[in-house]
């Protein structure tokens, strides 16, 4: 009987190799054999996990890539090909060598084999030889001085049935600091309805400790996603709130965090659970459609009332007009949810990333109660994950480096939301090393995004990190996700009709501000006519409107530039672009639109006026009609398409480039 786990692992590994090999050989006969795909995946998975356990790091990180490849096969993301199976077969011999004589002398071979593997995968996922395996470990606490926290703890009802011991958690909390615990029995059922396995109690705890918020949260690490946990920092007891001291202002309750994953309505501060009604989102969408129809029917009614000239009818029509307008406004409010529901997802992410990177991180959040349309929230989730990961992965330094630079060893990432007019501003900030402009520039030049020596503003330079092709050369670590570049962030924010603004100070930190319209459902637009059809141009993109006389139009033929004060702006004749087959009006108009820095003129036949409108999405059958971002229904029941200004500006620019080339 062997008593050395490493010896047991070697024996086990050779069995696993047999299992993997026979699976791979069977696959060569039948590439679609699911059982064998699963068996190979399982074998690689165990090999990686056990290898890492017993110190075979080289094996673990190398096998990780093979496992990832087979995971993609298993999920149907890439096909099992002969090339792939052969690549893994070859890699297997290397894995054996990594067990027999572990050490760095295999690195070159690992690199070569991974290149082959990558090629077999169609080059879609870039693997690197140094993929890290996370090591469990906790960073030391650095906070000094104790803080008093108020905790509201409500565990899921089935917590005890699933093996969580609430008393154990409270005891653990006592280990964190001085506790006053009171039980909240308000949701205790009467005796007949009492199920001994369900948890009906909640607790209020006042905790005084030197440890940080994340260490308090660690107590609940296994249940934090399913429970409601509010942790509120109390003002220092000795300093009365609002007192002005010796220059150090008293700390206000910094932020209230409500962790209630998947329960949007619960995060509304101050409202009792019983006051809320959960409504499936699609019913809200249906209701929104009905309200839209009502608004349209109403505008028909008011036209009719105006033409008939009956005073009584007009009065009724005006009442209905007001009511339907109010109804629509109320409807918009119903679709708003607090961004807290979005922020709460990041506790877990930051917690996990902290473990994976060995960086000590504190997540601060602010403005959770700021409300945004639910569709916007859903779309924002991915870009925010990417920005937070990026801040942690590239922004924050490790604890030692931070101490060397005179910073606290704990890095701070903060997420905040504020409302400004019709927009919400979401800010992701870190106190890390800041963006190295020279490196960005060098990388931009290497990727062909900037001409060497080109003059750029600081903002233009920083914005390079959001360009497609900028981040592709980066290695993919466990952290920065698979193949999701910062350009995806840019695209999503563009689709939300928002803007991105970056600030960064080298050595001090970076801040990314996303400005997003509060709602996607309504747009302020300029209604125009081109040929026989009407179109809406988003008002936020419109800079000005000019007259384009027929003579000017004829004169500009073949040039398609309009001179606007000191600059030449390319313009697009929408009549030609949309192939209307109609003659130009005598007095055409040119609407100048812009997306940040780029401008283009859109020549239309008539400007009808401002128009606030409900946006309707177009079906997938019209996905190729990319000049339009949606459609809307007009007062007379007709449909107007909403122009996608980004796309039109792009077309204007490519036209400009063509013209320049032709000159």
């Amino acid at each position, binding site marked *: 009987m062997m008593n050395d786990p490493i010896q047991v692992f070697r024996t086990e590994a050779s069995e696993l190799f047999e299992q993997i090999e026979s699976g791979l050989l069977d696959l060569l006969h039948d590439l679609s054999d699911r059982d064998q795909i699963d068996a190979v995946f399982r074998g690689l998975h165990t090999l990686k996990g056990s290898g890492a356990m017993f110190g075979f790091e080289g094996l673990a990180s190398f096998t990780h890539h093979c496992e990832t490849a087979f995971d993609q096969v298993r999920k149907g993301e890439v096909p099992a090909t002969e090339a792939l199976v052969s690549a893994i077969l070859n890699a297997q011999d290397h894995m054996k060598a990594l067990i027999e004589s572990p050490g760095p002398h295999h690195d070159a071979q690992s690199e070569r084999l991974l290149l082959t593997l990558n090629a077999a995968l169609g080059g879609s996922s870039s693997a690197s030889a140094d993929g890290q395996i996370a090591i469990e470990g906790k960073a030391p606490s650095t906070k000094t001085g104790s803080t008093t926290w108020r905790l509201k703890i409500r565990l899921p009802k089935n917590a005890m049935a699933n093996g969580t011991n609430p008393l154990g958690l409270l005891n653990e909390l006592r280990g964190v600091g001085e506790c006053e615990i009171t039980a909240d029995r308000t949701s205790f059922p009467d005796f007949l309805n009492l199920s001994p396995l369900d948890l009906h109690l909640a607790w209020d705890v006042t905790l005084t400790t030197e440890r940080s918020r994340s260490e308090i949260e660690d107590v609940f690490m296994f249940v934090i996603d399913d429970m409601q946990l509010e942790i509120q920092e109390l003002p220092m007891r000795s300093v009365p709130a609002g007192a002005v001291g010796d220059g150090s202002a008293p700390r206000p309750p910094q932020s209230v965090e409500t962790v209630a994953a998947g329960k949007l309505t619960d995060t509304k501060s101050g409202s009792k659970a019983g006051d809320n009604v959960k409504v499936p989102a699609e019913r809200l969408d249906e209701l929104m*459609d*009905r309200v*839209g*129809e009502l608004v*349209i029917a109403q505008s028909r009614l008011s036209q009719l009332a105006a033409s008939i000239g009956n005073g009584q009818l007009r009065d009724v029509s005006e009442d209905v007009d007001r009511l339907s307008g109010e109804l629509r406004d109320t409807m918009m409010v119903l679709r708003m949810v607090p961004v807290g529901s979005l922020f709460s997802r990041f506790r877990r992410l930051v917690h996990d990333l902290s473990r994976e990177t060995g960086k000590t991180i504190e997540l601060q959040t602010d403005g959770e109660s700021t409300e945004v349309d639910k569709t916007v929230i859903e779309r924002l989730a991915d870009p925010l994950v990417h920005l937070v990961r990026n801040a942690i992965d590239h922004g924050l330094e490790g604890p030692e480096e931070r101490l060397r630079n005179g910073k606290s060893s704990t890095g701070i990432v903060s997420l905040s939301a504020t409302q400004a007019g019709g927009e919400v501003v979401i800010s992701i900030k870190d106190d890390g090393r800041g963006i190295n402009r020279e490196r960005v520039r060098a990388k931009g030049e290497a990727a062909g995004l900037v001409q060497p020596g080109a003059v750029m503003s600081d903002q233009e330079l920083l914005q390079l990190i959001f360009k497609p092709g900028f981040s592709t050369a980066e290695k993919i670590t466990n952290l920065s996700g698979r193949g999701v570049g910062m350009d995806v962030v840019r695209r999503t924010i563009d689709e939300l009709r928002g803007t991105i603004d970056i600030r960064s100070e080298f050595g001090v930190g970076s801040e990314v501000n996303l400005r997003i319209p509060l709602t996607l459902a309504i747009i302020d637009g300029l209604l125009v006519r081109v040929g026989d*059809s009407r179109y809406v141009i988003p008002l936020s993109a419109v800079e000005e409107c000019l007259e384009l006389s027929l003579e000017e139009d004829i004169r500009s033929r073949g040039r398609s530039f309009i001179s606007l004060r000191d600059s030449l702006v390319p313009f697009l004749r929408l009549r030609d*672009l*949309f*192939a209307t087959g109609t003659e130009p009006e005598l007095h055409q108009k040119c609407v100048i639109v812009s997306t940040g820095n780029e401008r283009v003129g859109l020549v239309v036949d008539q400007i009808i006026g401002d128009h606030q409108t409900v946006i*309707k*999405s*177009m*079906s*997938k*059958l*019209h*996905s*190729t*009609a*990319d*000049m*339009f971002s949606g*459609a*809307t*229904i007009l007062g007379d*029941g*007709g*449909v*107007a*398409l909403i122009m996608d200004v980004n796309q039109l500006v792009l*077309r204007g620019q490519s036209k400009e480039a063509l013209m320049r080339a032709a000159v």
Partner: protein
Amino acid sequence: MTSVLETSRPDPIWPEAQQIEALLFELNRETFALNAKVVQEILDVMPETRVPGSPSFVNSVINFRGKVIPLADIRIAFGMEPRESSIDSRFIVIEVDVSGEATLVGVKADKVHEVTALSRTDSEPTPSVGMRWRQDYIHCLVKRGSEFIIIPNLQAIFAHEERLSGNGISD
């Protein structure tokens, strides 16, 4: 939604039953049929809005009860001559699966006839030769009296025409 439009099943047009209820309509003097289950509504002709840059067989949208839905002219897919609408013209609104999404689509018809039972025993597979049209655009032909009724494979048409348009459109 309804299994009629799924092409993956061996014979989806005749699920369990030997008969289906079908809506018959006319395009350029040919009779077509759609499973009545997918038909949502039959509309009088209404103003359509052309969508520049869209595939020619769905080059416009209409307002269907507050929703903006595409309007398809399957004549284009079958290479038939387009026609101006007449007093008998109608839009048939159906629900069909487009890239995995249940989508409402209007289909132009020169004239809508009755809903009638079509029987499996009268159906014939599409002959592979001698057809004017793409074979995969037709589910089957059903013989009725001296004429053949065409049951189009809408899913194949939408999927394929959508792909064609992906490469074909430019300004």
